[in-house]
C-alpha cells in the first residue's frame, strides 16, 4: 500500500489539486501549496530531496521574471484596458449594425464581427466580453432579440480574443512549448476566422428559420445615401484598422517581435483614447492600476503552477501519465491527441485556460512531439504547432462551459437583473457545439493551421 502510494504520488497530487480547488481559496495559493506539500510528502517517501526545493525559486524566476517573451502579457492587458476606454468598439458596433440592417440576425452578426475585429486588436477575454455585453446586450434586447441568442453570440464573440492574434494565451503557449510566438500567431489566424465564420453561418441560418428570435432593424435607420454610408464606414473602421495594422503589421512585417508589438499596440490604443478625449492623468493612473492588478493575478498563478509542475515531474509524474495512457491502450499519436483534447475540454468545466495550459503543456508536449501522425503530418517539427493550435481552439470552450466558464461570470457581472444565469447557460450551448465542430474541422484539415505560416516562410 505504502509503496503504491509512493509510486503514484504524482497522480494523487493531481487529484488532490482538483479536489481542493473547489474549496474556493485562490487558485494561485492552492497550486503552490499543493506543490510544496507533495514535495514534503515526497521527502517522506524518499522520492524527493529537500535540496530540490532550492531549485524552485530559480525556476519561478526563469519562467516568470527574467523572461523577455512574457513582457507581451502586460502589454496586451494594458492595451485591452485602454481600448475599452477609447469608445472605438461602440462606434464600430453602431456602424456594423447599420450595415447589416436589412439582414435577419444582423445585430448578432454585427456582434460576432465586432468580436472578431476587437480580437485582432487585443488579447484578453475579460475585457472584450464585458465590453461587448455592455454595449451590445441592451440594444439586442431592446430590438426584440431572444436573450439566449444575444448572450450566446456575445459570449462566443468575446472569447475569440484568446484565439485570434494577438493573444495572451498564444504568448504563454509559445513560451511553454518553445515555439516562436510569431509562428503561433500566424497559425491561429485561419482557425480563428473559421470559428468566427461558423458562428456567422449559424446565426444567418437560425435567423432565417426563426425570424422571431432576431428581427431585422428596418431600412430607415442610419444614413440613407450610399455616400454617407461610405463616409461612416471609413470613419469608424479607421481606428481599429490602424490598430490591427500597427500590431499585426509590425509583427508580420518584421519590425517588432510579438512582445514589442504589444507595446506598440498600447501606444496606438493610447493615441486612440487621446483622440477620443478619454485620456487624462487620472485615467492613465486608473488604467495602469487595473492592468497591473490583472498582471499580478496572472503571474501569481504562473508561479504556483511552475512550483506545482516542477514537483509533479520530480515525483515522476510524466512516467506515471505515460504508464496510465499505456494501461488504457492509448499509445498512437491520434489516441494521445484525442485523449488530451478530451481532457482539456473536461478541465475547461472547472479550470481557466491558464491553469490548463500550465498543467497540460509541460506533460504532454514531449509525449506528443515523439508521436507520429503517418500520412497526415509528415514533418515531426510541425506536431507541437498542430497541438498548440488545436488546444487553443479547444480552450475557447473552457471560457464558455458551465459551471465555471470565465466568460459567463464576466457576463453575469454586467447583465441587467432580468437576465439569469440560466439564460446564459442556455444561450451558450449551441455555441459550444459550434466550437467543437470548428475544432473537428481544424483537426481534420491541418493545412488550416500550416498554410499561412508556411506561406510567410515561418516554417523553414
Amino acid at each position, binding site marked *: 500500500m505504502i509503496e503504491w502510494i509512493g509510486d503514484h504520488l504524482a497522480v494523487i497530487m493531481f487529484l488532490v489539486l482538483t479536489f481542493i*480547488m*473547489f*474549496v*474556493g*481559496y*485562490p*487558485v494561485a*495559493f492552492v497550486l*503552490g*501549496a499543493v506543490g*510544496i*506539500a507533495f514535495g514534503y510528502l515526497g521527502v517522506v517517501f524518499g522520492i524527493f530531496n529537500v535540496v530540490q*526545493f532550492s531549485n*524552485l*525559486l*530559480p525556476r*519561478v*524566476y526563469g519562467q*516568470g*521574471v*527574467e*523572461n*523577455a517573451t*512574457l*513582457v507581451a502579457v*502586460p*502589454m496586451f492587458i*494594458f492595451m485591452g484596458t485602454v481600448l475599452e476606454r477609447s469608445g472605438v468598439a461602440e462606434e464600430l458596433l453602431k456602424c456594423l449594425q447599420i450595415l447589416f440592417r436589412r439582414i435577419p440576425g444582423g445585430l448578432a452578426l454585427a456582434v460576432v464581427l465586432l468580436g472578431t475585429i476587437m480580437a485582432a486588436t487585443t488579447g484578453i477575454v*475579460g475585457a472584450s466580453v464585458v465590453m461587448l455585453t455592455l454595449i451590445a446586450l441592451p440594444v439586442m434586447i431592446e430590438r426584440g432579440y431572444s436573450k439566449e441568442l444575444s448572450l450566446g453570440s456575445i459570449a462566443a464573440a468575446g472569447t475569440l480574443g484568446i484565439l485570434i492574434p494577438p493573444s495572451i494565451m498564444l504568448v504563454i503557449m509559445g513560451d511553454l512549448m518553445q515555439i516562436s510566438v510569431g509562428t503561433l500567431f500566424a497559425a491561429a489566424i485561419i482557425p480563428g476566422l473559421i470559428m468566427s465564420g461558423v458562428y456567422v453561418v449559424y446565426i444567418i441560418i437560425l435567423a432565417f428559420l426563426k425570424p422571431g428570435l432576431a428581427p431585422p432593424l428596418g431600412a430607415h435607420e442610419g444614413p440613407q445615401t450610399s455616400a454617407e454610408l461610405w463616409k461612416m464606414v471609413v470613419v469608424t473602421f479607421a481606428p481599429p484598422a490602424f490598430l490591427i495594422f500597427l500590431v499585426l503589421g*509590425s509583427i508580420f512585417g518584421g*519590425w517588432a517581435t510579438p*512582445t*514589442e508589438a504589444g*507595446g*506598440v499596440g*498600447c*501606444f496606438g490604443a*493610447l493615441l486612440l483614447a487621446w483622440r477620443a478625449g478619454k485620456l487624462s492623468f487620472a485615467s*492613465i*493612473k486608473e488604467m*495602469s*492600476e487595473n*492592468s*497591473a*492588478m*490583472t*498582471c*499580478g*493575478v*496572472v*503571474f*501569481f498563478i504562473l508561479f*504556483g503552477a511552475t512550483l506545482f509542475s516542477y514537483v509533479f515531474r520530480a515525483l515522476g509524474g510524466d512516467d506515471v501519465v505515460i504508464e496510465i495512457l499505456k494501461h488504457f491502450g492509448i499509445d498512437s499519436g491520434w489516441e494521445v491527441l484525442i485523449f488530451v483534447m478530451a481532457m482539456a475540454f473536461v478541465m475547461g468545466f*472547472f*479550470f*481557466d485556460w491558464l491553469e490548463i495550459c500550465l498543467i497540460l503543456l509541460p506533460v504532454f508536449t514531449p509525449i506528443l512531439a515523439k508521436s507520429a501522425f503517418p500520412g497526415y503530418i509528415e514533418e515531426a517539427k510541425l506536431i507541437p504547432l498542430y497541438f498548440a493550435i488545436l488546444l487553443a481552439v479547444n480552450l475557447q470552450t473552457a471560457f464558455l462551459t458551465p459551471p*465555471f466558464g470565465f466568460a459567463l*461570470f*464576466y457576463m453575469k*457581472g454586467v447583465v441587467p437583473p432580468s437576465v439569469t444565469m440560466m439564460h446564459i447557460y442556455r444561450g451558450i450551448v449551441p455555441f459550444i457545439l459550434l466550437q467543437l465542430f470548428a475544432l473537428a474541422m481544424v483537426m481534420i484539415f491541418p493545412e488550416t493551421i500550416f498554410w499561412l505560416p508556411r506561406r510567410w516562410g515561418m516554417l523553414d
Partner: protein
Amino acid sequence: MKGLLRLSDAIDAVLGAIARFFAWGLPILVIVIVFDVISRKFGFQLNILGVDLGSTRLQELEWHLHSIVYLTWIGFAYIRNTHVRIDVATGHLPPRSQAKLELLGCLIFAAPYILTALPYAHNFFVTALLQNEGSAAPNGLPWRWVPKGFLYFSFVSAGLAVLSVAIRRIVFLFGPPDLAEEAMPTPATMAH
C-alpha cells in the same frame, strides 16, 4: 482586537501605496518599447549621462519593468480579493462560513507555501546582491539583485497580505460586533 485591525489597515495601506506607485511602470514600459523599436529600425542609440542605451539594455529593461509591476501587485491583489478562485461550491455560503473557509485557507494553503518559499527567495536575492550578479550579455544591465529583490518582495508582500486577510477574518469571526462590522471583508469582486 482593535490593535490587530489597525495592523491590518497599516499593511493594506503600505502594500497599496507601493503597488500604486509601481503601476506607473506600465506606461513607462510602453515608452521604452516604442523607443526600442524605433531606435532599432533607424539604427541610432541614445547615450544618457555616459550610459549607452542599446537595444540589449532596453530589452532587459523591458522585462525588469514588467516584473516589477506585477511583483508589487501580487500581495495587494489578494487584499483587493481579485485572485482567481473557483467558488462554484462555496460562493453561496453565508458570510461566516466563507470567512472560516478563508481563514483555514490562509493557514493551510497560503502560510505553508509562503513560509517555505520565503527563505529560498531571501537567499536567492542575497546571493545575487553579494556576488554583484549582472546580465550574462556583455552589454546587458548590471544589478540582478533588483529584479530578484522584487521577487523576494512579492513573497513578503503576499505573506503580509495573507496576514492582513487572516486578521480581518479573525476579528470578523471572534471580535466584538462593532469591530466585526469594520473588519467585514469587502464583497467578493469578479476576478480580474
